[in-house]
């Protein structure tokens, strides 16, 4: 069993950037997009996000399942949101809505406002995803710890993240060994049954794997203690330096973030209702 992060963007323009760049862009996008409800602005952000996504060079064939799942899940949430709220939208007066039709049985009134809200929500989700994928696929796993440390995250925490990545392949190997060992004893994970039965059936895998990992960790702890871990500030083998392209990209993203924040605080990013949905 091989479980490693898929570094699909290897060699792409974005992957050649300092690993702090996609992380900082992800943070700014997460904080920026949530301030906007005007679909015209969200569309612009989505186009920028897709352009950014393209620079990661992620092959479509490798991620189409993830895109399909993410979009299906988002669509479900948006529809559920619209149905459960019976067409109401926070901070807006329902009496001003332009009702278009009522969903039979459940009685939800679908208005021009609720459709516009749903469409905007969908675009916002898609923008998040387009920014999130490059973070998953265009940062070299080995650079993550150094990048977090250089971003001001406490060194021990950054080292913990680095260590987490390093444990993954060995733990995946241990899991495969545990599965094989249990199969020899007649264990079958996919034998049918309900969720609770299957959950209980996971015990022969989860418990030995966890206990073995904890006991095995003693060697790592001893090795770290012998090297006086935490006694002084840790240095990283990977030396990170922003180049001109990194700075320009971050500056551009920061400018967009500031513009969005100004629009949001000035009340110019509120819900935009599609004119074609409004009665003439």
């Amino acid at each position, binding site marked *: 069993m091989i479980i490693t992060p*898929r570094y699909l963007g290897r060699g792409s323009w974005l992957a050649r950037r300092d690993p702090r760049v996609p992380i900082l862009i992800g943070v700014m996008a997460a904080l920026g997009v949530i301030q906007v409800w005007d679909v015209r602005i969200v569309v612009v952000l989505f186009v920028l996000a897709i352009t950014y996504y393209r620079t990661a060079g992620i092959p479509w064939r490798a991620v189409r399942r993830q895109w399909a799942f993410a979009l299906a899940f988002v669509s479900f949430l948006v529809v559920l949101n619209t149905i459960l709220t019976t067409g109401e939208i926070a901070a807006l007066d329902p009496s001003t809505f332009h009702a278009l039709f009522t969903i039979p049985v459940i009685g939800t009134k679908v208005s021009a406002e609720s459709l516009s809200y749903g469409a905007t929500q969908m675009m916002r989700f898609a923008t998040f995803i387009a920014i999130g994928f490059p973070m998953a696929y265009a940062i070299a796993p080995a650079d993550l710890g150094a990048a977090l440390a250089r971003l001001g995250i406490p060194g021990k925490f950054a080292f913990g993240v680095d260590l987490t990545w390093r444990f993954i392949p060995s733990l995946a190997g241990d899991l495969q060994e545990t599965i094989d060992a249990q199969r020899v004893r007649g264990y079958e994970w996919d034998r049918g049954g309900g969720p609770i039965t299957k959950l209980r059936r996971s015990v022969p895998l989860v418990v030995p794997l966890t*206990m073995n990992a904890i006991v095995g*960790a003693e060697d790592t702890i001893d090795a770290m203690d012998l090297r006086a871990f935490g006694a002084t500030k840790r240095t990283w083998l990977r030396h990170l330096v922003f180049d001109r392209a990194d700075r320009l990209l971050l500056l551009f993203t920061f400018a967009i973030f500031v513009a969005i924040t100004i629009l949001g605080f000035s009340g110019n990013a509120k819900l935009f209702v599609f004119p074609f949905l409004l009665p003439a």
Partner: protein
Amino acid sequence: MATTQLDRSRLWEVSSRVIVYAAIGAALYGVLGWLINVPIPGSNNVSVRPAFALVPFFGWAFGPIVGLFTGLVGNALLDQLSGYGGLTAWNWSIANGLVGLLAGVFAATPMANALGNRIVGAAVIGVLSTIIGLLFVFTDIIVFGNSLQAALTGSYGFVVVPDVIAAVILVPILAAAWEPLKASLGR
């Protein structure tokens, strides 16, 4: 059997032991969460994830810092391995982290010995920390613009029921396996 509850004076200490256990917890959560999940029939891709039980367990066994890291980084790692990006649903990672943090804090209270039994205490802590910690997913209202009802049924309700089931079944089993091991390791 080993000591009754975690030593409060060392609860927030960040030693090499804490870092390694935290990294192990997060990696286990990521690997097991990715490979082993049990879909609930009739739901929209909602699964019981046995791996979730590791979050309250690591918090209970090794303290709040380990629990926080296991949930926070483990969930982000899971999202990263799945390909959605570790920061896309950052509020869900924080919610998972809070579960571990609370489990660690509760383990240092008399709750750890609920009904005079450490194993029952672990189950109680697992359930309580899950119910309270996951309340943070209500930030979906701000982050994704969901309504309160959608956050309650579409986010919190969907995740808390399967995660409580996983916690109530697996945390005591893991605790029962860990207690004698802990004594033999001299912890």
